[in-house]
């Protein structure tokens, strides 16, 4: 498989995971959140509104594409260029 097609296939898998499989993700609090509730320091959290709202199928796919662009851009910029 050519590298180009491998990357395209990988991005499609990521989009599928964020857009579809994420529907079946557990809604329970994660490890740190649960510990903060049990240990009585959850109320020290200062929450704020999210620019994109909660994680959902659409916002998840948007997130995947933004991360792809930013991380791809940064690593493309710092890579070794040319002959090797």
């Amino acid at each position, binding site marked *: 498989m050519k590298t180009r097609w491998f990357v395209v296939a990988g991005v499609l898998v990521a989009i599928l995971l964020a857009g579809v499989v994420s529907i079946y993700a557990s*809604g329970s609090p994660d*490890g740190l959140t649960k510990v903060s509730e049990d240990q009585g320091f959850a109320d*020290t959290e200062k929450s704020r509104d*999210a620019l994109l709202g909660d994680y959902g199928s659409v916002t998840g796919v948007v*997130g995947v594409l933004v991360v792809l662009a930013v991380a*791809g851009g940064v690593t493309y910029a710092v890579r070794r260029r040319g002959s090797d």
Partner: protein
Amino acid sequence: MHVPDGFLDAPTSTATAVVAIGCVGVALVGARKELDDKTAPMAGLVAAFIFAVQMLNFPVGAGTSGHLMGGALAAVLVGPFTGVLCVSVVLLVQCLLFADGGITALGTNILLMGVATVVVGWLVFKLLQTTMPKRLALVPAQAGIAAFASVPAAALLFVGLYAVGGAADISMDTLLTAMLGVHVLIGIGEGVITFLAIGAVVAVRPDLVYGARRVLARRELEIRSEVTA
């Protein structure tokens, strides 16, 4: 494990931010050695994949869930320096667009999930690779074990930071026990996901796995020596 604003006090958050900036700076310099025209596209994919899999919370015991952190996975796939960059970008986007992890806690989260899991994951992976037979088939399992170890390590670092600058006056012993207990379980999920993901790439394009390059080069050398003999 995304730390929100308010869990750690301002001096601690400032200190972690400074250290995190330093680590990302080192990673930017070090990544140049790891990245070339062939591997650079992989880094974008790895970051996007980690972002997607971090959405997939899996249950760990009653009323608790966990998700992939991805540091060990990134380190084995694209190299440790590039791995720090990948997870840091994921955390930055989660923080800015999804309010997942606090703004003042971004440095803390980069240290916990972007640096600690990468460093511990990579060191354990290299240790296993050095001590075990040099075989490509072992790479996914070695990566899985390294990923497993990286999660309690990050939990341990959080407890350390909380001991220094936690907002609430709570027992450090019970915090340590609770954090390690749940993150050992989450670590099992991290190990399984990392094993499967690395296994899939090794099966299709082993040359794209940074951590497999040494065993691949060795294998090619063996083939050549057989031909000339």
